[in-house]
């Protein structure tokens, strides 16, 4: 598995203590631990997973709004172009 990863020496690194996978953000490591090693975690790690998950939930909400806006723009944009051409 590890030949699939390449970590630049200057980058901040968060390694999973259970499987050694490297992550670029603390948040990704917390999420990874909760998803892949759920049964092995201590209370603090579980809490960190929950926080990361909640935090992500908020940014997903924002992303959905943007995606919806993009869909509307594409749909009505094409509709208007078809009306003109």
């Amino acid at each position: 598995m590890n030949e699939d990863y390449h970590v630049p020496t200057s980058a901040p690194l968060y390694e999973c203590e259970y499987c050694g996978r490297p992550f670029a953000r603390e948040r990704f490591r917390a999420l990874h631990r909760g998803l892949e090693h759920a049964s092995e975690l201590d209370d603090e790690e579980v809490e960190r997973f929950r926080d990361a998950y909640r935090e992500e939930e908020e940014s997903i909400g924002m992303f959905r709004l943007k995606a919806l806006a993009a869909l509307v723009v594409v749909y009505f944009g094409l509709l208007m172009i078809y009306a003109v051409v």
Partner: protein
Amino acid sequence: MLRRRAVAVVALAVLAVGRATAHGGSLAQDIREPLTIPTWLFLSTGGAAVGASFLLASFVTDRELIDAIHDWRRGAAVPGRRVAVGLLRAAGIAGVALVVVVGYFGPTDARSNAAILLVWVGWWAGLSMSAYLLGNSWSVLNPWRTVAELLPALDLRYPDRLGAWPSVVGLLALVYLEVVSPLAENASLLATTVVAYSAVTLIGAVAFGPSTWFGQVDPPARVFRYYGRVAPLSSDGDGLTLRLPGMALSERRLVDGRDEVAFVLALLWVTTFDGFVSTPAWRGLAGPFVGLGIPPLGVYLLALLLGFGLFWSLYVLAARLSRSTAETFLTPAALAARFAPPLLAIVAGYHFAHYLDYFLGLAPALGQTLAAPLTARSTVLVLSMPGWFGGVAMASIIVGHLLAIWVAHAAAYDLFPGRLQAIRSQYPFIAVMVVYTMTSLWVISQPDIPLPYL
């Protein structure tokens, strides 16, 4: 020009759906009709459809739902499996014998020659469709494999570093041969090609053992195996497993390494190349090179290789960019391998659009000539498809893309811990898919001309 007709059909198919006015043109006619909307708008609509499907897929962020869809499966034992396998193997051997005999001694007219119809209509169109719609039966039917397993194997060591590269070269070579030579019109040439292919294949299979040869080197075996991954049915030793179509494409390690990624990209490129060489744009592009005194066959080869290089480097570039959009330490090679299988759904969609009408139209002729293969006849049964049939072709291109986007979405969720991270990882790949789609749509919106300079 049996095969060229198929390309014209797709052009009409797309036109029929791509514009507002009703299109009642006959699908059998041999020219592409001009677009009534500007080409740029036609292409943008196609590209926008791919982008919009990605945005729609990104609304599904529930891991459990994605897993449930991908893990759903039903298994069933097949009664009389040994008999069925034996019959299929016998049919495969009978098929190749028929192609050789009828190729040399059958009627010279392509449309009434069972060898030509069996290879192009039965095998390349029909069997390929069955491989991605139902399941891969070529692994059993493959007559060369059946024979090779009866022969003694020398079991020479296959160099690991060669990997799938010989099959990449082989696929490009076979498609080149198919485009530049009259393999779809000249039955004895087709028979000679089959004999030559048999010799190479059997020697290779004896030298390295059938499982290595057909697993690594043989291009058709790899094409059918990859098509089979799109299909709902797969064989698991003594029974059949039913899954939702395309779901097997999200699995880990389905495509492993640079060589196998290159094969998927080669398969995607050759479907485009086939149509590209019969456009006026190609005539204009190739003209100066032919004028310089380069032999036309060389120009065709150059275009095949350069186009493949371009498709492939675009994909590799996407994998590199994905590393930064997803903020991951996974190598570009690992990302490229993980997101290559979804492209197979796109390839299947294009294949279906290209060949459905061709297959259904000529299937009666195939049946008729198979019943009496050595009889020369002046007419054969050819079905003409109704006008709405073009919609089926266009729909299959769209379904192929939807499936590819969904499967890539699921693979990203399997790979990345962050849900938004998974969505971001797809940005470069979606951009590349938009480019591939617009290229293919552009090719089929061009007028169809005979292959120039050949």
